[in-house]
């Protein structure tokens, strides 16, 4: 099997400051990468650079296409969850899940099931009334709307309680089994199976 994504010798310079330098890793289908670093070490910047939201400085990011070639341009959709979760206060919990691109064609009951799975019962509350952790759970429910080859999740475990942490660990395992890979960040090693790298 070929890696879906190869990051080679990547470095980032922002406002003439080197944020990170010489990053190398490969993302095999169904396997995870965990990027660990202190505050301001560049984890968020790295994820966003991989996605092309921030211009890279040196090195390359190579994406596998359907013909087993590697391309500099992204060849498949990825799932990204940043520090900002993209949750709309004026929509209800249910609408926050339903009115996204990934839920196209998904029946209502499926969405209810997902919400139940992440522990959200108040599906008709406005998101504005939710606690921070509950908002994060909406974001987690979105992982399941569609399967992606690669998920890039920035600090999946922060602001969550132990139950939600276990849930996420399970979800990642489950998606790994389907061949999905996770690139996650954190400040200390988590319990998921992953190759860890310091930044």
């Amino acid at each position, binding site marked *: 099997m070929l890696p879906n994504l190869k990051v080679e010798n990547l470095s980032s310079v922002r406002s003439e400051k080197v944020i990170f330098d010489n990053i190398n890793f490969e993302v095999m289908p169904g396997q995870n990468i965990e990027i660990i670093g202190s505050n301001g070490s560049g984890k968020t910047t790295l994820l*966003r650079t991989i*996605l*092309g*939201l*921030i*211009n890279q400085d040196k090195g390359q990011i190579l994406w596998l296409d359907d013909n087993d070639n590697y391309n500099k341009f*992204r060849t*498949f*959709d*990825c799932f*990204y969850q*940043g*520090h*900002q*979760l*993209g*949750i*709309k206060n*004026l*929509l209800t919990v249910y*609408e926050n899940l339903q*009115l*996204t*691109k990934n839920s*196209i*064609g998904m029946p209502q009951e499926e969405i209810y099931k997902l919400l139940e799975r992440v522990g959200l019962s108040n599906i008709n509350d406005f998101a504005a009334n939710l606690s921070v952790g509950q908002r994060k759970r909406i974001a987690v429910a979105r992982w399941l709307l569609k399967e992606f080859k690669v998920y890039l999740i920035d600090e999946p475990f922060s602001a969550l309680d132990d139950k939600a942490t276990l849930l996420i660990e399970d979800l990642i395992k489950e998606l790994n089994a389907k061949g999905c890979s996770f690139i996650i960040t954190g400040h200390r090693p988590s319990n998921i199976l992953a190759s860890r790298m310091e930044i």
Partner: protein
Amino acid sequence: MMQSSISDWLTIILRRDLIIAFRRSSTYITPLIFFLIVVTFFPLALGPQESLLSSLAPGVIWIAALLASLLAVETIFSEDFRDGTLDDFFISLEPSFILVFAKVLIHWLITGLPILIASMIAALVLYLPFESFIPMIFSLLLGTSFMSLLGALGAALSLGRSAILSAIIVLPFSIPTLLMGTSVISSSLINQDFSGYLMIMGAMLAIGIPGLCLLTVEALLLNYE
């Protein structure tokens, strides 16, 4: 398949943003009332003489339209930018053009369209003759659409911290629209041919839709460097 997914997505963006806009000001009536209040200001300040008002009517209607499009402009992208939704659009492999187009459409639906309706009442109270209603509607249709395009560019330029002087960039370009729109109505008042003006406005729109949308994408990308 690809085609249909784009149009599905467009529908979802439109639905989502319209729901939010609706919850934020709850009635379609709000922009309509707003427009009428602004129109009311003019007779109050300039005097109620019918001849004066009807000669000013084209301008008054156009100034009110301009104000309405400017008022809602800032929110076009700011919320999506702040809460991370905008990221999704640039991560997706579909062209970001779509997003900008959807956003412009939404802005027009919540400002331009109500104005179109309100303008008929405004025309009535400002003693605009009935013959001028059709030219007025057409000029507003073209002009408010162009304003929404310009507004999107301005909003994109003033996002975030690199807020360059978006106002200076956008507002001067709204002046031709204002002048041309007014000329359409006032030409019709004196039975002159106004199709030339409409044609120019149409041409501006025709160039603006691809041109300004692309520039807006570029402007948004400035926040992703």
